[in-house]
């Protein structure tokens, strides 16, 4: 049903012009271009021939790609969950009118400011069984201690989770904090009268009120998941073997080192469609609920 709408100010259209241009020229254009390249035999440069789905076929015959998708799924679930939880907790604890709030906030945020090329190396060292934590524990006499995930086929991806959570949860904290501070004091007072324990207020009242911040954080983290690359390169280079390969690294390898932008484009398109398949239902449900609620 087409519902008549009140006239939207002309200025609103002017205002979103930059967005429209960006979307059409930069994003839509790139997507179409990428889709086009993905059905060509392009190597270093885009070619104009048409090879059908052969890049896609090759892609899905590539074990490393399939493994990347699998890895990123595991990684994504853990990373997003951990970041949201830790970020929220940090925001909550920082919100307790603590001393040195500014310093603490900076401490939790600083990883976000550091290039992963260097911090990834530090993590690699710290997690390295012969240099880092395990070694220290051994030296302290706890010789059974074992913490060698980074060299373990099955565990390496979790070390990426640890390091990236370390990097990103500060940002989630900042987002949550900005949302938390927006909650009306009166709500807090009401909850105090109701005798609700603080943690419960955060959980049952404040957190639902932070819906917008949470969803922003979620999308942000989701984007990070899909694009995770630096951390893997700096820490494990996708290894041991291909145990911590991720799609973005796959794409980057083919884009540059392996000079096969056709395959890289096909991978990007597949990645995009996968994201769409995950996000679209969420988006749909949210919109429906909003429509019912408004």
């Amino acid at each position, binding site marked *: 049903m087409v519902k008549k709408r009140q006239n939207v100010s002309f200025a609103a259209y002017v*205002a979103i012009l930059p967005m429209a241009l960006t979307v059409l020229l930069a994003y839509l254009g790139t*997507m179409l271009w990428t889709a086009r390249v993905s059905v060509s035999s392009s190597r270093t440069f885009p070619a104009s021939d048409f090879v059908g789905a052969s890049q896609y076929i090759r892609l899905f015959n590539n074990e490393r790609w399939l493994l990347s998708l699998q890895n990123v799924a595991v990684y994504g679930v853990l990373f997003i969950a951990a970041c949201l939880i830790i970020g929220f907790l940090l925001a909550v*604890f920082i919100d307790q009118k603590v001393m040195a*709030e*500014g310093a603490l906030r900076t401490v939790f945020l600083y990883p976000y400011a550091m290039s992963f090329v260097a911090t990834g190396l530090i993590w690699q060292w710290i997690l390295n069984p012969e240099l880092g934590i395990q070694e220290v524990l051994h030296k302290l006499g706890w010789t059974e201690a074992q913490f060698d995930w980074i060299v373990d086929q099955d565990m390496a991806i979790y070390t990426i989770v640890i390091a990236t959570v*370390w990097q990103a949860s500060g940002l989630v904290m900042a987002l949550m904090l900005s949302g938390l501070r*927006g909650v009306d004091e009166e709500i807090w007072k009401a909850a105090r009268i109701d005798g609700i324990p603080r943690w419960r207020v955060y959980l049952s009242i404040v957190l639902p009120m932070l819906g917008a911040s949470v969803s922003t954080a979620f999308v942000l983290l989701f984007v990070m998941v899909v694009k995770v690359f630096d951390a893997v390169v700096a820490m494990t280079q996708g290894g041991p073997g291909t145990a911590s390969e991720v799609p973005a690294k796959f794409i980057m390898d083919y884009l540059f080192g392996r000079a096969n932008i056709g395959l890289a484009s096909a991978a*990007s398109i597949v990645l995009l469609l996968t994201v769409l398949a995950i996000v679209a239902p969420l988006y749909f449900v949210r919109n429906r609920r909003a429509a019912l609620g408004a």
Partner: protein
Amino acid sequence: MHPNAANDASIPTPRPRRSGAWTPARIGVYGFLIVAALFFLLPLYVMLITSVKPMEEIRLGTLFALPQNFTLEPWVQAWSSACTGLECNGIKGGFWNSVAIVVPSTILSIAIGAVNGYALSFWRPRGAGFLFAILMMGAFIPVQVMIYPLVRVLAAVDLFSSLPGIIIIHTIFGMPVMTLLFRNYYAALPLELFKAARIDGGGFWRIFLQLMLPMSTPVIVVAVIMQVTGIWNDFLLGLVFAGSEHLPMTVQLNNIINTTTGERLYNVNMAATILTSVVPLALYFISGRWFVRGIASGAVKG
């Protein structure tokens, strides 16, 4: 302390609340924060001590040990004399270039993101929702995939390899997340305020500039944190789009720490990394005062 506190448990201790008494809850809060801070600081500790050790000591591989031959040489070198190809000026060379890129890019990308978010939340122009959906999809395309076509576009309008070019590029890449950030923030504000401003005759820009922006400080701080960090730390886009006169300091940083087959000076790398991040770190530290409480309180009843 109240004299009765000890022997009459049923009477709540009279205490001036602000004096920060050490209740178990309080201790718990600090306990958590301290443990968390230690976890967060561990890598920084390693970075710092690595940066003040000579390479011989680093090669020994005693990661957590304090330096035995403390040296500031790596810092000096990182800042002003490390070689990155023919140049041996450390990372300081690109500092002002970075500033010249970060400031306008941050402002522009936040401004556009805020306007987009505002338009999407309150005005909903026809088709904007669709544009936004595509924009958000675009956020999931690896930046590197987009570089080639964007190079062509920018070259076509003669902005490739220029300061405006790199600013536009950062704005483009920042747009999805900035728009999302502001859209969601505005969606959580009471709609009544917007309505009141409409009644008051406010047009699109007025309401945005005089009503919405002042209420946006917390989210602007987050946006600034994200954009400044992102743009300051970017080197790939700067390298490709900025042109050789405007290369940001991260290109130098990358050159210092990211060699493949050259020998690596870890101490210099760490020093350079920390030095490069000083600007965002300073920003984080001072951003606190804008995380204001209850920015919209008192606005609506109910």
